[in-house]
């Protein structure tokens, strides 16, 4: 698959084949790098998944322009992530040869830092109960009506669901605070 085809597939949410392709073509390079710098296979899997999350988020947000090759971009994110996890490593040595422009590197670093914040938010969301999680997902991600959600989650009415949603969001924020403080 060409890089553009991969990006198009992700943009249209038909990314299954594209992701599989990336795992086949890029992941071995990432694995080699991580293993070279003292990591294990599961570490490589973690950083590669992070890189894919960044990529998908960027593509879905629109206006994603890439001068370098996609594999280079993904490898660079992985390397940077691996360096973030192992600050003792020589960053210059680790990041050399990525062929990204300084602007791209800057953007990349910014994205990774943002992702760290989102990671905490994800953890906070994860700490909610199953019912809360479903309620928020139905409302914010799947755009379902409160009435529909009330029926689905066996709540008395849409109004109850709305109150419940507010409480759930409040609880998630509370969890996020706790995580941020820690």
């Amino acid at each position, binding site marked *: 698959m060409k890089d553009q085809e991969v990006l198009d597939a992700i943009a249209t949410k038909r990314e299954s084949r594209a*992701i599989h392709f990336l795992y086949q073509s890029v992941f071995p390079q990432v694995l080699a790098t991580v293993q070279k710098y003292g990591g294990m296979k599961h570490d490589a899997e973690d950083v590669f998944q992070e890189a894919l*999350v960044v990529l998908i*988020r960027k593509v879905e947000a629109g206006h994603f322009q890439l001068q370098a090759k996609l594999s280079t971009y993904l490898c660079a994110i992985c390397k940077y992530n691996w360096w973030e996890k192992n600050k003792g490593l020589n960053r210059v040595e680790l990041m050399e040869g990525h062929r990204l422009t300084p602007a791209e590197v800057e953007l990349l670093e910014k994205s990774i830092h943002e992702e760290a914040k989102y990671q*905490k*938010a994800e953890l906070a969301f994860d700490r909610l109960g199953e019912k809360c999680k479903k309620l928020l997902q139905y409302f*914010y*991600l799947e755009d379902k009506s409160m009435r529909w959600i009330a029926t689905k989650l066996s709540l008395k009415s849409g109004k109850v669901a709305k109150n419940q949603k507010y409480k759930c969001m409040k609880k998630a*924020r509370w969890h996020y605070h706790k995580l941020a403080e820690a």
Partner: protein
Amino acid sequence: MKEEHQYLLDAFLQQNLREGEEARLKELCSADSNFKKELEEAELILKGMKRKAIKKRIQKSRKGGVKGRTSKIIAIGLLSLAVLILLSRYLLQEERTEKKVPTEQAAPTIDITTQGSPTIPKETKHKTLIDTISKVFRRKTSEQITSKKVEVVDSLSREKSIPFKPKKIRTQQFSIHQFSQQSIVGEQGTKVQFPAGAFATKSDSIRIELEEYYDLKDMLFADLSTQTIDGSILQSGGMIKVEAFDRTGRKLQLKEGKSVGINFSSSEQQNSEMKIYYGNDSEETIEWEQKATSKKDSLRKEISVRPLFHGGIYYKDVDKQPIYSTTKKLETTLNENMRYQKQWRNKNDIEAKILYSVGEFGFVQGAYIIGESPTWADSLVQKLFMSLPRFEEAGVHKGEKRAVRMVLTMALNPQQEKQYYSSNEWNEFYDLKIKRRNAEQKQAGVKERRRFLDQSRASFQEGSGAMEKYRRNSERLGWINLDSPCYRETEVIALKLPDSLLDYKVRLVEPNRKVILAPVRSSKKAEFKKVPEGIEMFLFVQKGEGVNRSYAWQKWKIDRQFPEIRFQNKPDFSGTID
């Protein structure tokens, strides 16, 4: 939070802000820092949710990809395997067709043709390939359905050169505790009862191996015969091989004076003339003798075995169970109410069903374990039940007072609390309870105690009585045959095996009586010691071993002259000899 704030926050997060709403939101944020903070945090949470959703998508895509790849590999593998099977089968058949004629012609004086014609016309080769393909894909070709010729060709295939595959008798394994009386029941119904302390070993756990031969074919293909060491003819009611091993794998024999009780599962067990015979390995088969010449165990030591007395026992509150008198209700009681709960069960528990009767004044009259049980358990159950207090609604059935019988399932544990239950204290306690209860019972004026006690006992014996009646005792383990002599009034003759058959396995078989005779071999000679003259039997010959073996057989009314053998050309052995 105000309604408007909440609305704007949701609209912002869902990216649904209308005209003017965006400005209003900005305004609110600049005016209310708390709201601004709340908005930012909610946005973060939403990003976290999205992140989780993306991760799920990635994992799903990855798994889907791997799954797809794996299934592709499996599909390719299966296809290649199918092609390989097809090719090999086709090539084998071709090879066989070419070699068939010279092999069969090379047979000795007596021509042993196992199956059908040895040649296949050229055109049928293609049919064979088509048939093989259809077999692989489990589909019949139209030719197979319409033409019987195809079946003939099939019977010539390598598989069919063995008329059928005799099933191999499985060695069944059991584990028993040797310090209590225990029984095993084989897959074909043989029951072997081991007395407590039957083996001369300290090991409590004994591994028992059992093989059962009731079918004539099983006997035939296990190289068994039915003749005594001196050649007398026997008819079989079933053969078993039972062996015992300790933890180290050492083969054990029964202690002197101990015997195992065997219930064979054939109808012949009811024939009182059928006796136990013990098998000894000879060169070609097993020869039987009636006397148990026990193989002495070199490591035998006298070990004092203290029989178990009482075991742990758990039961549901018996006095709170409903009382029923009909058989149907007994079933219901057993299944719904009286099954003891699983969480009460221990690893070594034995499940026992107890039949007990309650007299019209509510006292337990008798309690017995249904089926066979060790003495300690019987005694324990009796004591427990007889010491129960009076039932509140005892014996009330359809408005009138009468005695009823019930079934209760209990867990008995011979290992647990052994010491406790064997102590005098325990016995004294229950004896006292029974004494008190009996006194109460007397006062209540119950007179029919004996009658129901007898009734309960009779119903218990009804089940186990038949088993006891037909049980045979065996003083040793190993090959054991339920046999009786036959053809006692027929003249028996000796038959020398022709030289042409010396290299084959030859048997004389009488399927109805389950008689299998084998020749006794000495240097370059083989002879049937005693065969009944004038009796029609099957002459059965096996050539080759393993996958290359083939069989032939024919009916023969036995006379002094060995027949000229013309083997039948039948596709299925079982139809001929059974």
